[in-house]
């Protein structure tokens, strides 16, 4: 409601102790809203946990992920093998643990790559407008014309299947997504009067873009990046599942799942656990992204 939002607006309403300095206060308000959003908190904790597992994976994992033990193949979950063993008798729990680093690596690096290019294109497109904008956006339209996983599929076809190539493929498919988000935010920030004030002061385009536009579009960017890590992990594991990504015997979750297809009837755990791992990681990033969106959104000020 208009009246209420007018009333509730204004930082002086923030429920913070008044003696903090403003910058710290701003951060605390953000943190406060963030904490309040428990799903985001759970997401964040899970991600930290996964990063922890990535670092200490070899210590945590009870077995070597590559060591085969044909005698004990396709064993169900037991106290020896928490997640059971696969068709080569490898310990699935250890393989899932080791797979974490591959998954996180693909997720983070593809998004960082894609976002960097996308942000650059989006800012240039939004700030300069006109012909440059049309050209960049038509180019993005071409990339967006390949729906879903198809673009990544096409790129992997060209590059060949490997973990690194999956990163490139997912990164390229994310470029138009970031370019569009950033272009939109740039357009709305560009309209604000303080940008005109900087122009009136004689500031250069570079200064305006990097000092006055970029810092003010980071919130939607961070949200988009977090959510896109989830998407990237799904796409990448999908490609591996199809045999176009990480190659055996790497313990990549999608590839492990693919192995499990043949044993659904007599050893369902082979497909179950890597899949669950993907669900939990993706869920964590989605939760964190949702939470960040709420925290940054001025509309959900409580």
């Amino acid at each position, binding site marked *: *409601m208009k009246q*209420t939002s*007018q*009333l509730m607006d*204004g930082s*002086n*309403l923030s*429920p913070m102790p008044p003696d903090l300095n403003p910058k710290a206060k701003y951060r605390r308000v953000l943190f406060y809203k963030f904490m309040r959003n428990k799903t985001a908190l759970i997401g964040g904790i899970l991600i930290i946990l996964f990063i922890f597992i990535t670092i200490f994976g070899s210590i945590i994992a009870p077995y070597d992920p590559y060591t085969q033990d044909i005698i004990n193949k396709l064993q169900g979950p037991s106290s020896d093998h928490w997640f059971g063993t696969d068709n080569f008798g490898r310990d699935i729990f250890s393989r899932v643990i080791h797979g974490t680093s591959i998954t996180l690596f693909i997720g983070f690096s593809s998004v960082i790559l894609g976002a960097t290019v996308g942000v650059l294109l989006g800012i240039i497109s939004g700030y300069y407008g006109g012909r440059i904008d049309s050209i960049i956006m038509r180019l993005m339209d071409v990339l967006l014309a390949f729906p879903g996983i198809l673009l990544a599929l096409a790129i992997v076809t060209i590059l060949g299947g490997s973990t690194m190539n999956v990163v490139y493929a997912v990164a390229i498919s994310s470029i138009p997504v970031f370019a569009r988000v950033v272009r939109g935010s740039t357009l709305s920030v560009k309209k604000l009067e303080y940008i005109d004030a900087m122009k009136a002061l004689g500031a250069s385009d570079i200064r305006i873009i990097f000092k006055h536009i970029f810092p003010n579009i980071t919130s939607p960017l961070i949200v988009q990046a977090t959510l896109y890590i989830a998407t990237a992990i799904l796409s990448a594991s999908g490609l591996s599942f199809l045999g176009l990504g990480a190659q055996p015997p790497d313990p990549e979750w999608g590839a492990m799942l693919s192995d499990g297809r043949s044993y659904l009837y007599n050893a369902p755990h082979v497909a179950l656990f890597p899949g669950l791992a993907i669900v939990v990681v993706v869920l964590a990033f989605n939760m964190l992204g949702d939470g960040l969106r709420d925290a940054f959104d001025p509309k959900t000020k*409580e």
Partner: protein
Amino acid sequence: MRAVTEENILEIKNLQTSFYTRDFEVKAVDDVTFSIPRQKTLGIVGESGSGKSITSLSILRLIESPGKIIGGEILFKGKNLLGKSEAAMRKIRGNEISMIFQEPMTSLNPTMTIGQQISEAYKIHQGLQKKAATKHAIEMLKLVGIPSPEKRVKQYPFELSGGMRQRVMIAMALACNPDLLIADEPTTALDVTIQAQILELIKDLQSRLGMGVLLITHDLGVVAETCDYVAVMYCGQVVEYADKRSLFKDPKHPYTVGLMRSIPTHDRDLEGDLAVIKGTVPSPDEIPSGCRFAPRCSYATELCKSKLPDLQTYNDVNQIRCWIYSDEWDGDSEVNLHAESESTT
């Protein structure tokens, strides 16, 4: 307080509406009392955050969570609206009490035609069928001065200008011939020449249809043009209530006086600097404990700062919330509010 209830179409007594955040309560409207005589216009003036819009939404009980009406009485034709069921309230809304809003651009549903939106009121409150309702809608459009109404009923809001949309809002509000029209900043979003048209229209329709009007505005000029009575609000309270002549000729509250002085007018030359009210409106979480205007008032004494004055009646009708006019006043015995106050930047 006016004694005879029958004379007033609306009486508000000690209304309190608060908004809640997780940690504290914002008293947006705090102990507001005023009345509107039948067929008269009351103007509520105040700056943003004074609670004037919340007051108007409270009357129709359109306050939504996290807001809540927590006390007082709203007597409409002598009956307390706060005691009515939601279903009974719905029968009153748009039928006996109608409301128009500030933004004619956003206050109309973009996916419904003008005709559908006006005739809805007839369907709800008079049980009319589509055809009859549309016929009435066309008549209403004619009444509010919209050219070729037969064509307009089939149009969507985006096809109309701002002034036209506000006319449509008025047509919608007056469809069921209400006893009270609440107009919340009806002309703030419009240009002056269009504002003049709309104010003229409201005045004209009021005299023809005989309804009471509650006009909410921040513009003293609009009040002077259209209202019979004026309530001045500050920080969720009425600080002064008076008939128009008294208020403009002899304002009593230091805030009212300051407000009038600080506005440059187009029909008079002013020498030197504008008079100013020092400081700013306190934020809702830092409301002073005494008189709410005390921190900005140049006459404030210890009494003002420590104790909230009551709204007291003088001349039978007019009311004032200020210690200067009470027996307890501890400041100068002769306060001359109308002397040129010292201006500060």
